């Protein structure tokens, strides 16, 4: 277990949860930074869906509702909706993902961030999210469910 992450290994896969982020049940994370909220997807989600080939994202200036759909993420296996954990206005979208969408797989909590939001009410939205210790056992339940599908 590192200082920055909670980790658990099942078979050959190690699932990581960044300790200082907040988590939505639909597997996206939020991190407040300099008045904006940075959003990405969880390590669990990127492992389940596979190598990201495309992301369809809203543009800067778009308004989002908390829990609303912010775009889609497509792999060779599936297409999933990207949920915004926070309401507000999109300030910036990660341009690196155009050429290299697999950053979402290789570094979901860092370089694979997806968009930044100027939040309408971060304090209120945060109450609907889980901190890492609360999210971690929920993630383990989902891992169990995925493994039971075999």
């Amino acid at each position, binding site marked *: 277990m590192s200082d920055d992450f909670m980790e658990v290994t099942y078979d050959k896969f190690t699932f990581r949860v960044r300790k200082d982020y907040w988590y939505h049940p639909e597997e996206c994370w939020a991190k407040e930074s300099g008045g904006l909220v940075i959003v990405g997807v969880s390590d669990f989600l990127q492992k389940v869906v*596979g*190598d990201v*080939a*495309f992301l369809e994202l809203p543009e800067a200036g778009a308004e989002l509702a908390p829990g609303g759909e912010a775009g889609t993420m*497509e792999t*060779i*296996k599936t297409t999933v909706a990207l949920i915004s954990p926070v309401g507000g206005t999109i300030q910036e979208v990660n341009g690196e993902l155009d050429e*290299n969408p*697999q950053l979402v*797989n*290789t570094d979901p909590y860092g370089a694979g961030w997806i968009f930044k939001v100027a939040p309408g009410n971060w304090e209120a939205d945060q109450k609907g999210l889980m901190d890492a210790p609360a999210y971690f056992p929920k993630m383990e339940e989902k891992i169990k469910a995925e493994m039971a599908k075999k």
Partner: protein
Amino acid sequence: MAKKIVLLPCSGIGKAYGEIGRQAIYEVIGDHRPAEITTTCLAKLMIDDPEAKQLIHENIVITVDGCARDCARKNVETAGKKVDKALRVIEIFKDHRDLKPEGVLELGEPGFKLVHILAEKLGREIDCLERKEQ
């Protein structure tokens, strides 16, 4: 003596990309000039098989990796050879997102359409590299 073209897929067994790369290489070898285009087992490079090492060092090498992990390219470079061209199956899929393979090994019709498209791209890359050699 003209150099051969050595095509090396990652053949990853965890994802459909590995099978797509492998099948595309077999298609190119079968359809094109089998005497001049060949493949070898990637793992032979790791066990220092002298024939496999000689093949890659003396000829033109194109790797076909499934994804950005680039296992085939890395394995070849670990064996001391810089690849002449590195392709990724995921890049082909990006241009044909409606073609989703049906399984990891049983690709189905859409998977084999991706195979054909990749084989055509490989053919073009081979022609380009051969022109450079002349």
